């Protein structure tokens, strides 16, 4: 157990109602960090972010640290997507705000010993976009894919060409979005792999698609799950150091399904040589 409500109350020395969404990552010094949300009042939109560090690869953990990120009672900052390691040694963690406004942000984390110092950059304001998934495309260039809560029902994207300091206005991708989260990953070929619900109205399927430039000409390569009236949602994509790509997602909102495949399988699917699905480990 890394953290539960009791551990968080003890570490943070305050009343907490719930502990939720967590993201784990390692920094350049091999320290392992856990960033997770807690709530004291209301639902998940009242969440605050906290961090915990392990100096021994996850065997033991230092006390949690509350991250102060909002002037409004420090609430409504949530995390979901995978972080990006920056050349400066900082970590870029996609986060989002969902109280009154709904908008994506990027958290800049600077690890020092077992603590984090933070600043953040807003991707865009308003009440339309959530849960950004950031994919680096070059030294200063990255693209963020956004969950769209508006009636447009399209995945939106924003680009940065200055390492995340400023972002272009959101634009639609040619992929549908039923107000659901997406996950994305840059492959060694330079293409971008995205996991998403291929529907404008439901989460009844989970699909993989690939684009050469991460913006145009998306090619669907596999439907991982599809059942009427079921939900397949909240995908999370990472690539391990051995090159294997791991995808985890909520399966019918009852289990977490883990799917693992490699880039060769993606290439075969792209070229149409392989009609089979990837290796599944439910």
């Amino acid at each position: 157990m890394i953290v539960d409500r009791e551990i968080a109350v003890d570490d943070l020395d305050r009343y907490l109602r719930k502990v939720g969404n967590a993201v784990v990552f390692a920094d350049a010094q091999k320290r392992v960090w856990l960033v997770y949300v807690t709530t004291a009042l209301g639902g998940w939109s009242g969440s605050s972010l906290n961090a915990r560090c392990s100096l021994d690869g996850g065997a033991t953990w230092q006390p949690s640290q509350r991250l102060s990120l909002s002037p409004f009672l420090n609430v409504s900052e949530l995390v979901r997507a995978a972080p990006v390691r920056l050349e400066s040694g900082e970590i870029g963690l996609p986060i989002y705000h969902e109280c009154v406004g709904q908008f994506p942000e990027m958290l800049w984390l600077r690890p020092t010993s077992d603590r984090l110092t933070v600043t953040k950059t807003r991707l865009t304001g308003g009440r339309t976009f959530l849960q950004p998934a950031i994919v680096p495309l070059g030294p200063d260039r990255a693209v963020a894919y956004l969950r769209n809560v508006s009636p447009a029902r399209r995945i939106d994207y924003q680009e940065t060409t200055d390492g995340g300091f400023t972002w272009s206005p959101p634009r639609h991708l040619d992929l549908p979005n039923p107000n659901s989260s997406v996950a994305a990953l840059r492959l060694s070929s330079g293409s971008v792999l995205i996991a998403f619900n291929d529907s404008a109205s439901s989460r009844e399927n989970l699909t993989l698609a690939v684009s050469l430039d991460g913006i145009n000409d998306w090619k669907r390569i596999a439907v991982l799950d599809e059942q009427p009236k079921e939900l397949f949602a909240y995908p999370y994509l990472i690539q391990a150091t051995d090159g294997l790509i791991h995808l985890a997602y909520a399966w019918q909102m009852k289990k977490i399904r883990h799917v693992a495949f490699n880039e060769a399988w993606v290439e075969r699917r792209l070229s149409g040589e392989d009609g089979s699905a990837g290796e599944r480990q439910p």
Partner: protein
Amino acid sequence: MIDWCYPLLVWALILGASTRGVQVLFRGLGPRWLPLLACAATFAPVRGLPLGRWLHGYNANFSIPLVAVLLGVILKPWLKRPLFNEQTDRASCWFGCVAGMSLYPVALGLGPFDLYSVGWQWPGVACVAAILAVFLIWRENSFGLVLLAAGVAWQVGCLESDNAWDYLVDPLYVALSFIGLILLLRQAARKQKPEAPSSSTKLSAAVSNGS
């Protein structure tokens, strides 16, 4: 350690000032040390944690101007004259309203730029506050000293947050500033139009003076 004690002390002041407010509303209900007892209740253990640490879960980042306002309310019965004069109250209310109106709509998603992030940069917000503090001190307005104290608290790291905005404003202070400003403006309007004071005028004046 100081960022552990500070929010606990502010929650003590909030409980004390709230008790004092109830006393004023009910015309001196209870002894004048009752607010101090309410302050002390913050340290009473509840299921292993001081009451103030439970409240700490709801907010840990209280601004320095809020502390000044709360101290003014609680200390009023023990002081020969108010801790802050009307000029200082007016400056505090205007600062809270302007800072709150500038910060909160933007922080809650209005527009693409996040003004809150300027609070992490140097010189940024701290520099503007320092210039305002010097100006107010030069004009012999005590609110300048409050802003100066906020700068010192930021350097010391009194709050869990290291964002300069959190040392200058918080939602409770902004809400009190709006109430205070409305009462001050009403008071000023009535001074211009002399008439027999009503009970509501007396109550407004009492609340704005923290008595």
